[in-house]
């Protein structure tokens, strides 16, 4: 079905506007990070393009504000969350999808209900628990809530992937006398690796971006994660926009690259649940 040329041009004009609208806000703060503050605060002479030779804002946040440490902390906690959450949820998803047992339908129901949980509804008892076992200011305190909050999504996603595999797989495994764990680990896990990979990216992004638990459970400066560190950059007397824009940019670029490389997988991972209902 070919539209008339005029309509097609109009569609592309709208698309261009939409793309500018989606990209410009991030472009504008990334652009700011490559200029001295004196230029940012001069609205008579607007700097439309980044000056990639001006790196003082980046040098400042790394040398004066120790920002690499926060990025490493975030990377560490996000990686840990991803590994553990994926192990726990792929094992459970396999059982829910491929093994018949009494409690399985209740578990999926509870998990689906959990996906609507507001974090604020559980944060104070969790804080008291973490305080009691003396785990405030540790990454472990963040690990458990992050696993719990990504579990509904990853369990749901992975269960769909495991369900999509043919029934003959178990039969041949039974004939070979494999234990259920071997069947899971050696036969099923390699087959759902695309699904695991997609889910892992989404879990990683969640943990990388999370703010509420991170700001509540970690007050020790050297253990802060990236989002908490960014929020902490302005002081009472001074808002260092140059440094803030550099921190915002450096924290987002890895995600943007990740998303652009794996966009097809991410989109299918995000939308599969909604489309199938």
């Amino acid at each position, binding site marked *: 079905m070919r539209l008339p040329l005029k309509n097609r041009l109009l569609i592309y004009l709208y698309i261009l506007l939409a793309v500018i609208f*989606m990209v410009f806000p991030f472009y504008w703060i990334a652009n700011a990070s490559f200029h001295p503050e004196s230029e*940012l605060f001069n609205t008579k002479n607007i700097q439309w393009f980044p000056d990639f030779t001006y790196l003082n804002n980046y040098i400042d946040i790394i040398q004066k504000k120790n920002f690499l440490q926060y990025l490493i902390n975030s990377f560490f906690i996000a990686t840990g969350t991803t590994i553990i959450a994926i192990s726990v949820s792929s094992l459970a998803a396999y059982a829910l999808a491929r093994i*018949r047992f009494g409690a399985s339908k209740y578990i999926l129901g509870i998990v689906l209900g959990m996906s609507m949980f507001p974090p604020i509804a559980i*944060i104070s008892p969790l804080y008291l628990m973490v305080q009691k076992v003396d785990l405030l200011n540790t990454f472990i305190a963040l690990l458990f809530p992050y696993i719990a909050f990504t579990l509904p999504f990853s369990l749901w996603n992975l269960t769909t992937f495991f369900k999509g595999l043919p029934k003959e797989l178990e039969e041949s495994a039974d004939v070979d006398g494999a234990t259920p764990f071997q069947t899971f680990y050696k036969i099923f896990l390699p087959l759902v690796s695309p699904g695991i990979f997609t889910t892992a990216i989404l879990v990683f992004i969640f943990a990388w971006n999370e703010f509420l638990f991170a700001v509540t459970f970690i007050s020790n400066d050297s253990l802060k994660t990236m989002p908490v560190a960014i929020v902490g950059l302005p002081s009472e007397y001074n808002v260092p926009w140059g440094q803030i824009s550099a921190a915002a940019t450096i924290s987002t670029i890895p995600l943007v690259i*990740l998303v652009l490389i794996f966009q097809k997988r991410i989109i299918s991972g995000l939308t599969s649940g*909604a489309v199938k209902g």
Partner: protein
Amino acid sequence: MSTLAKQKAKWGYIFVAPAVIVIFAVAIYPLLSTFYLSFTHKDLLDPTSDGFAGLSNYKKLFSDILFWESLKNTLIFVVFSVIFELIFGLGLALLMNSAIKGRGIIRAVALIPWAIPTVVSATMWLWLYNDQWGFINILLTKIGIIDHYVAWLSDPNLSLFAVIFSDVWKTTPFMALLILAGLQMVDQSIYESASVDGASKLRQFFSITLPMIKPTILVALLFRTLDSFRVFDLVYVMTSGGPGHSTEVLSLYAYKTLFKELNIGYGSALAVAIFILISIISVIYVKVLSSREEI
């Protein structure tokens, strides 16, 4: 049940055990504790304050002006952000669907606002809204919509809508991607026969496209409604609820009560209220979704 099946069922329980333990320890037990704490006077500043409070926290809640104010702000935030996300998201999805070339690029671009950490996007919008150097002021004065720079976030009449606008920016592309996935499931041959029958494009949209993607839209609306109801990071970073309490949403008010005032008892009652409101919204959506499936 054969012995093999029984054997397997046992393994089923073993495999789900870690997930179930996490769910109980980190979600269900704390949720029940929040209910319990909401009936106490627990106050972190005063260790002797553990006593049973009965319903007094809930009585306080009903007469607390700040609770009603933050509920009102939350509802405004939810309704406006979800409506605008739906309208723009639908438009964007239709655009993406009709773009023959470059659909991949625009889909990739649409993921950028979604992937940006909320704290970063909030910071970004603080910079855009800045009352002295912000691009929005520069742009709007240049094209003559305003004649002087506006302090978008310090004006109690504007601040909530300024925050809503930045939420719409961040989440519309996600909405569009969900709707696009729904659009791509619609069988193209239906449109061809409709064109043969002489149905106009507009007519085709309302009598074919919209009914076909309605379930996808409802699921997307459910996700977005629940998500925007618990909004926290965006408001915390952009305004901390101010100026005054003009952008204070429920999650933020509960958070401040719990961790700034250290009033765990009353803060828990607020948290329970949020939980109940979210449950009601979910039940309504699920009812609508399942009644549709029965037809």
